[in-house]
């Protein structure tokens, strides 16, 4: 869950909790207050009633039924007065909430029961007042609280989402522009993302600093490789020429000659490694121009021509099943090297009598050029490290120095092409180059 959503949900939940609690407190206290008011009114009524009582009235009231009952039209209040036989002197009173049935109508009443003496007789007076108004108040307050709750939560959620989106916007921009979109630290944009949030400023600065360090390291590494490789070429030249001249001497034994050639061969390998590293380093440093218009079909057929003899040697069949041609801007000789290495790999790691197939496909992500072979294949571990430098897995190819796919990778990166490789041991390998739209 995104921080933005989490914050909004958290805020809403706390608000729900607070408002609910508040609602209950208000409900409870309003209930209490209403009952208190009711009771106060009942006492006032009782006192008024007693004060207005006279002998005549009591007699009048009681003689009729022995018990006097009265209620108003809507049965909101009632009164019961009856004579009780009690030895108690003085007046007592208590409240109670109870259901009474008046003329078949059941209602909850707040009831005040009190006894008093009047001219030597004890009377019990019961005054009741309906609780309906209290219940109604409770109801109204509940609804009101609920509506406030709903409105508050909605408003909070919307406001929080909007605000946190606004607040976190620089954060996502930093992630996107300073981390996700950075393919090459050397092209890193050090322009800070505008934000007033200090935390994000710190994040931005830290990433920039880190990138600075990385770029420095990368540049140093690249320079190191370039310099070392370059410095190595002169001594190799010297050894190479010395060995060649030595070979021209008449007095050499066959064994001596063989050893010298073996030295030259190793030297050739060394030279090849250095040149490969130099090429990778130059491609990575973008020391090539990308202004040639390259046609994939022409490029494939050129490479085929150069490699035809190798296909023959291994009796491999070569099928160019490409359905369409694709043209793009790039560096012709580098792309040639890329294809050369790819197709050469398909030949080198193939089995005698196998086949090499070139196919094309166009889908929503772009144009795909695919080279498949029926060779020895790779397993998952090999596949993972396939594009690493100096990675070679089999002892069948002792002369390979394992830089072929690293060269392919650097050239593909330089042209912003996406390479993917899938392979199955003893079935074959398929390498795809995607030319994104």
């Amino acid at each position, binding site marked *: 869950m995104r921080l933005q959503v989490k914050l909004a949900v958290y805020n809403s939940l706390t608000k729900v909790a607070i408002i609910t609690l508040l609602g209950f407190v208000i409900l409870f206290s309003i209930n209490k207050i209403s009952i208190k008011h009711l009771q106060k009114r009942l006492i006032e009524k009782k006192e008024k009633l007693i004060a207005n009582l006279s002998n005549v009235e009591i007699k009048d009231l009681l003689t009729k039924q022995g018990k006097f009952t009265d209620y108003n039209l809507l049965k909101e209040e009632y009164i019961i007065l009856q004579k009780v036989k009690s030895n108690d002197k003085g007046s007592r009173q208590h409240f109670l909430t109870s259901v009474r049935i008046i003329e078949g109508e059941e209602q909850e009443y707040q009831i005040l029961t009190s006894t008093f003496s009047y001219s030597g007789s004890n009377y019990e007076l019961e005054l009741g007042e309906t609780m309906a108004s209290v219940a109604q108040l409770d109801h109204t307050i509940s609804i009101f609280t609920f509506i406030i709750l709903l409105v508050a939560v909605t408003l909070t959620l919307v406001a929080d989402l909007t605000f946190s989106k606004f607040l976190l916007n620089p954060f996502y921009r930093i992630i996107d522009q300073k981390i996700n979109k950075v393919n090459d630290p050397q092209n890193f944009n050090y322009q800070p993302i505008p934000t007033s949030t200090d935390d994000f400023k710190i994040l931005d600065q830290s990433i920039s600093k880190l990138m600075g360090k990385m770029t420095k390291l990368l540049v140093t590494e690249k320079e190191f490789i370039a310099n070392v490789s370059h410095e190595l070429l002169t001594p190799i030249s010297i050894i*190479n*020429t*010395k060995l060649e001249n030595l070979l*021209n001497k008449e007095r050499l034994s066959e064994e001596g000659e063989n050893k010298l050639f073996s030295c030259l061969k190793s030297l050739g390998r060394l030279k090849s490694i250095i040149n490969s590293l130099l090429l990778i380093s130059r491609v990575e440093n973008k*020391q090539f121009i990308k202004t040639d218009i390259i046609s994939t079909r022409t490029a494939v057929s050129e490479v085929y021509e150069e490699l035809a003899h190798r296909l023959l040697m291994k009796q491999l069949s070569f099928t160019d099943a490409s359905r369409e041609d694709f043209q793009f801007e790039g560096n012709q000789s580098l792309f040639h*090297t890329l294809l050369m*290495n790819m197709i050469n790999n398909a030949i080198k790691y193939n089995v005698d009598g196998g086949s090499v197939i070139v196919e094309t496909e166009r889908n929503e992500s772009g144009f795909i050029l695919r080279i498949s072979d029926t060779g020895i294949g790779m397993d998952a571990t090999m596949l993972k490290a396939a594009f690493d430098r100096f990675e070679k897995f089999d002892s069948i190819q002792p002369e*390979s120095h394992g*830089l072929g796919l690293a*060269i392919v990778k650097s050239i593909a990166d330089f042209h912003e092409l996406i390479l993917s490789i899938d392979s199955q041991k003893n079935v074959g390998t398929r390498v795809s180059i995607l030319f994104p739209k």
Partner: protein
Amino acid sequence: MRVLIVEDEKSLALEMAEFLGKEGYLIEHAWNIKSAEEKIFVNSYDFILLDLGLPGGDGLTLLSQLKSDATRDDAVIILTARGDLNDRIIGLEAGADDYLPKPFSLTELLARIHAITRRRHKLVTNEVSINGFLLDIKNHRVSFGSVSLNLTNKEFEIFNYLVLNKNRVISRINLTEHVWGDILEVNSDSNFVDVHVKNLRKKLAIHTSIEWFETVRSIGYRINL
């Protein structure tokens, strides 16, 4: 022919001198920009083998100075460890006849010198004869007597290179690099050149015995004369 080697690596320069000396070239050395300038503007040479990174300056300046003099037509081959594509282009644009990145093979250097010689001086003898075969270097043709051999381009180049470097063992790698150029990783398995040599030998052997075309086991090939 006079050759000036402008190279500050003494042992490399001396090896080149030894090799070319045996081929009949007259060698002079210049070890830095200053001595190179002195020599170049006093004498004229058929070939100047020019290293770019020299003590005291850049070989390219020397080249442009030389090329600005219309009276001079010394052939210049740049020999450098700066294998940069841009350097190559700049060098050739500045008027160099060829560009050979270090490390190079001496036999390759010789082949380049020959190629330039043929190109520039329009040699009368653009044909080389060997044991009854006639190599027409200009038109890439080989004939035996009046019969023309049907060689592929690669086969011709191999034959030509071996003839040029006769009496020397030419390793497979050397041959591969000469014929196919330096395709890095791809060249690491150089045995495939054998197929071409096999075909070439077959085509030659139809006409005459070719025991002078020797296969040196596990190394390469040699044409003995």
